[in-house]
């Protein structure tokens, strides 16, 4: 079929992927911004994250409705069907990431009412890893790259152990100085939220593997 035009369904599928990427970019940006606000103790920046959920929520609805329409009007099959079903799930994951950025911002806002408990090292590191996982998971989606998706899955352990490390370290602060309990708990919450963001990136990576190879690698049926 040398001169066969690209079916307009494929164009619409591409548009769907572009919107999903846009949403991923917004989610990633909010995670970056909220951690920057924490490090720089920048209250207006925290407020911007707290009130800036609108664009992600609008995209959440738009992407769902695009998927709904593509399924209803084009009855996609095989890899196209998997791409759209994956898009629905990835959309939900990204929206949750946006919500978690708000949850982090709430914790940051409370945290800033107290003097810093300690120098921030592990939480920015967790944020870097979570953002990279998100970015890689979405790159893997666009490029249909299962190797990259698998790398995202493998990175989740680093995030989990950082979370445990943050908890242990802050526990000693709280035991020694009860006045740090409140802000330390907020730091623990932030690390939990970042770890959850990593989990959502993991979900996305699992969806990519399903989309490309039709293999379900969820619930620890992973390859090493």
């Amino acid at each position, binding site marked *: *079929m*040398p*001169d*066969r*035009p690209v*079916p*307009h*369904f494929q164009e619409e599928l591409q548009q769907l992927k572009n919107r999903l990427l846009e949403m991923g970019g917004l989610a990633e940006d909010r995670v970056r911004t909220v951690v920057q606000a924490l490090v720089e103790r920048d209250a207006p920046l925290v407020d911007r994250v707290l009130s800036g959920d609108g664009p992600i929520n609008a995209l959440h609805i738009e992407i769902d409705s695009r998927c*709904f*329409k593509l399924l*209803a*009007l*084009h*009855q996609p099959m095989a890899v196209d069907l998997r791409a759209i079903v994956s898009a629905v799930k990835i959309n939900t994951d990204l929206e949750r990431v946006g919500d978690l950025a708000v949850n982090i911002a709430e914790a940051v806002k409370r945290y800033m009412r107290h003097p810093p408990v300690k120098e921030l090292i592990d939480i920015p590191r967790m944020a870097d890893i979570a953002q990279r996982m998100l970015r890689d998971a979405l790159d893997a989606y666009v490029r249909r790259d299962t190797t990259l998706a698998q790398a995202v899955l493998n990175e989740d352990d680093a995030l989990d152990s950082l979370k445990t490390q943050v908890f242990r370290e802050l526990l000693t602060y709280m035991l020694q100085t009860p006045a740090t309990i409140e802000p330390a708990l907020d730091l623990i919450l932030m690390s939990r939220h970042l770890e959850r963001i990593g989990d959502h990136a993991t979900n996305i990576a699992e969806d990519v593997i399903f989309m490309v190879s039709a293999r379900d690698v969820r619930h620890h049926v992973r390859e090493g």
Partner: protein
Amino acid sequence: MSTVQSALPPLAVATAGTDRTSPPGPAAIDVDGLNFYYGEKRALENITIRIPSHLVTAFIGPSGCGKSTFLRTLNRMNDIIAGTRVEGRVVIEGRDIYAPGTDVVALRRRVGMVFQKSNPFPKTIFENVAYGVRINGLTRNRGELEDRVEESLRSAAIWDEVKDRLHESALALSGGQQQRLCIARALAIRPEILLMDEPASALDPIATQRIEELIYQLKSRYTIVIVTHNMQQAARVSDRTAFFWLGRLVEYGPTDRIFTNPGEKLTEDYVTGRFG
């Protein structure tokens, strides 16, 4: 038949939403209170619909629902069937095509038609497309005619496949190619509206996909009305969908709404395959 019809529940849509009859933008075809009879039998009942220009409108419904009959009323193709009768108005470009004195030949030049079964003339590929242009005296010389043939074949997405054998018989083409040739033939006389009656029902899936893509591309230049018993095809190619049932227009609206959230239970039952 009349007893069956009288036993039917009244259709709520008779007065429902403006959406059903008033699409946005200019109307290419404005049908008002159309009844159509085969002898005593009323095949279409009080159809009122506005078909927008430069969009694809699909007519769907079970066999015998009147969708093809209705399509043929839009360029008076039913005139050739004895014992038929029309009431109501079909207005195209401000004129009722059933008004006395209508030039039916000129009407069909403006409202072209492509049929279910491709029906190329037993002539060369070139002559098939040139024929209508020539008898209508639409070009002044051979050069213009050749340009018109090429342009039409390109518009119908078949030029690359036939450009080296324009003077071979059209009957040697595959079914899908013949159908695209017939579309080229219809386009050659530059109609404003293209009526398509099951244009892909005799074709394999690949040829069907090519016709569907072609329809999608042509809508920027033509108003297209397509009858299809393939609901999925209507969903894929059309902007607006009209659902017919027992000679009545049950529901008409944006295709995505008809297939995701129809307003009528009958439509929902049909698009979900519960009957038909």
